[in-house]
Structure formats: structure tokens, C-alpha cells
């Protein structure tokens, strides 16, 4: 867990810094980490707004990125046996990392690990964001620091571990192609949302 918590604090810190660069005030950056608690969607929303994309495009891309939490929630549902409120709160702590840690193989999940790992990750994520958003300002101009390249590097780093299997690699490449073709002709943010059509590769089987 220790290397993971350090990584999450650092990752939260970079969200704080990049959100500020994209025009977020620090309370907005912290509020987003506290409610959304999902890295890729938060970075996507911030980068689309920072690029001058519309609110609808930023929301659409972020929620599409988080659509995976629908099926992930379904996989843990059988092992969450408390009240409705308890199940809802457990679900909020079920993020990629805590989900992976709680998996016991053969489709079983340990709810105690979801809460333990999830809470620890949550605190690291929100605290890291706060430090980055409040203190990161003193870093200077994001462009000279190369922070605009930190975004694509981060997305690549998030993509590599999940791009396992031929179809997922195809979806990633097709998504990239759709977005690049549409960039010169569609408003900012729209190419990203249109790229989600690449998931229709999953239909033919």
C-alpha cells in the first residue's frame, strides 16, 4: 500500500497544479477530488476546460470515462450486505485501485478491504489535491514548466495498464484516430466525446 499512497498523493498534487493551470480555483479543485474521486475523469474535465472546450464537452467526457464504474459497482454488489446508505458509501470508495486490492479472485470481493484501501486512497487524493492547488501556484508558468505535456503523459500512463488484449488496443488506437481527424473541424472537447464511439468495437462478437 505504501508506494501506492505516495503515488496517489503525487497524482492528487498534479491534479491540483493542473486544475489551477486550467482555470480552477483551489476550492473547486479540492471539491472535485472530494466528490468525483476518479483521476482520469478529473484530468479530462480540467484539460478540456483549459483548452477552451465547453462545459457540456467536459462533463460528457468525464462521465463517459467514469462509465466503467457502473459494471465495477455491479461486480462488488453481491458482497455489500449492509443498508442502502452503507452500500452507497461502500460504492463511493470502490475506485480502480481499491477494487483491485479487494479482489480475491473467482469474482469475490472483501468489503473490509474496499473500505480500508478506499478511505486511505481518498484521504491521500484529497490532501494531495489541496497541496497542489494551493501551493502549486508558486511554481510559475505552466507552459515553461512543460506541464502541458504532463497531461498526455499521464493519460498514456493510465492507458497502458488497462490496454490489455487486442480489442482494447484497437479501441485506444481508433479513439485516438477519431479524435485527431475531428480536431481541426469540431469545437474543442467534441473530438474526445466522439472518440467514445470506438467502444462499439465491443459489439461485434
Amino acid at each position, binding site marked *: 500500500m505504501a508506494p501506492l499512497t505516495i*503515488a496517489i498523493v503525487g497524482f492528487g498534487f*498534479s491534479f491540483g497544479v493542473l486544475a489551477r493551470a486550467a*482555470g*480552477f*480555483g483551489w476550492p*473547486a479543485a479540492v*471539491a*472535485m477530488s*472530494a*466528490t*468525483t474521486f*476518479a483521476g482520469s*475523469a478529473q484530468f*479530462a*474535465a480540467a484539460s478540456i476546460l483549459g*483548452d477552451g472546450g465547453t*462545459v457540456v464537452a*467536459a462533463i460528457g*467526457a468525464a*462521465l463517459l470515462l*467514469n*462509465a466503467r464504474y*457502473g459494471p465495477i*459497482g*455491479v*461486480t462488488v*454488489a453481491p458482497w*455489500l450486505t449492509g443498508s442502502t446508505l452503507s452500500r452507497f458509501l*461502500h*460504492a*463511493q470508495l470502490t475506485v480502480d485501485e481499491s477494487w483491485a486490492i479487494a479482489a480475491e479472485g473467482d469474482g469475490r470481493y472483501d468489503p473490509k478491504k474496499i473500505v480500508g484501501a478506499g478511505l486511505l486512497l481518498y484521504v491521500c487524493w484529497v490532501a494531495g489535491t489541496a497541496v497542489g492547488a494551493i501551493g502549486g501556484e508558486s511554481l510559475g508558468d505552466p507552459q*515553461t514548466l*512543460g506541464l502541458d*505535456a*504532463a*497531461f*498526455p*503523459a*499521464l*493519460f*498514456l*500512463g493510465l*492507458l*497502458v495498464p*488497462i490496454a490489455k488484449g487486442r480489442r*482494447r488496443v484497437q479501441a485506444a488506437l481508433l*479513439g*485516438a484516430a477519431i*479524435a*485527431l481527424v475531428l*480536431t*481541426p473541424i*469540431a469545437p*474543442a472537447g467534441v*473530438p*474526445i466525446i466522439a472518440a*467514445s464511439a470506438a*467502444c462499439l468495437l*465491443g*459489439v461485434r462478437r
Partner: protein
Amino acid sequence: MNEVWSVVLIVGAGTMAIKGVGPVLLGGRPLPRGLTSVIDLLAPALLGALVAVQTFGEGEELVIDERVVGVGVAALLLWAKAPLLVVVVAAAATTALARAVL
């Protein structure tokens, strides 16, 4: 600022709803197999698009600039299984360096 807050609040509420819907409503029934395989491909498709647009997009134009250096370094480091934080910092640093030198 209003734009930022609408995104923060709507994405926050939407994400909480997406995370909660399975455990609260479905009671463990799995999604239809066809739908699962489509949703499984959403994240790779969107992340691929984000990498491409954030590397080559400049407003509504496609350009090749110093970011390509940083993202290339990131790809090499990822291939060498470096931690994500190292990858991101190295990408920013090499891009900044390329900007200062070129």
C-alpha cells in the same frame, strides 16, 4: 468560475450516481454480456483520444511541438515500467528542457 463549478458539481454528482447504482439498485445481477464488453472499451477509447489530442492539438489545429518530446520520453519510461509519477514529471521536465533549448 461558474463554468468550472458547474463541471465540478455535475461530474461529482454524476460519478457518485454511477458508482452507487450497481450496489444500491441491481442487487448483484450482472449487466448483459454485450453491454459489458462495450463499456469495457470506453476507457481505452477515451484515454487514447486524450493522449492524441493533448499531444498534437493546439486549439483547433494539429501541431508538432515540444510536447512530442515529453510524451515520447513518457512512452519509453512506461515501456521500462517506471512509476507513473516519475513518468509524468519526466515528461514535463523534458518538454520544458526542449522549450528552453530549441
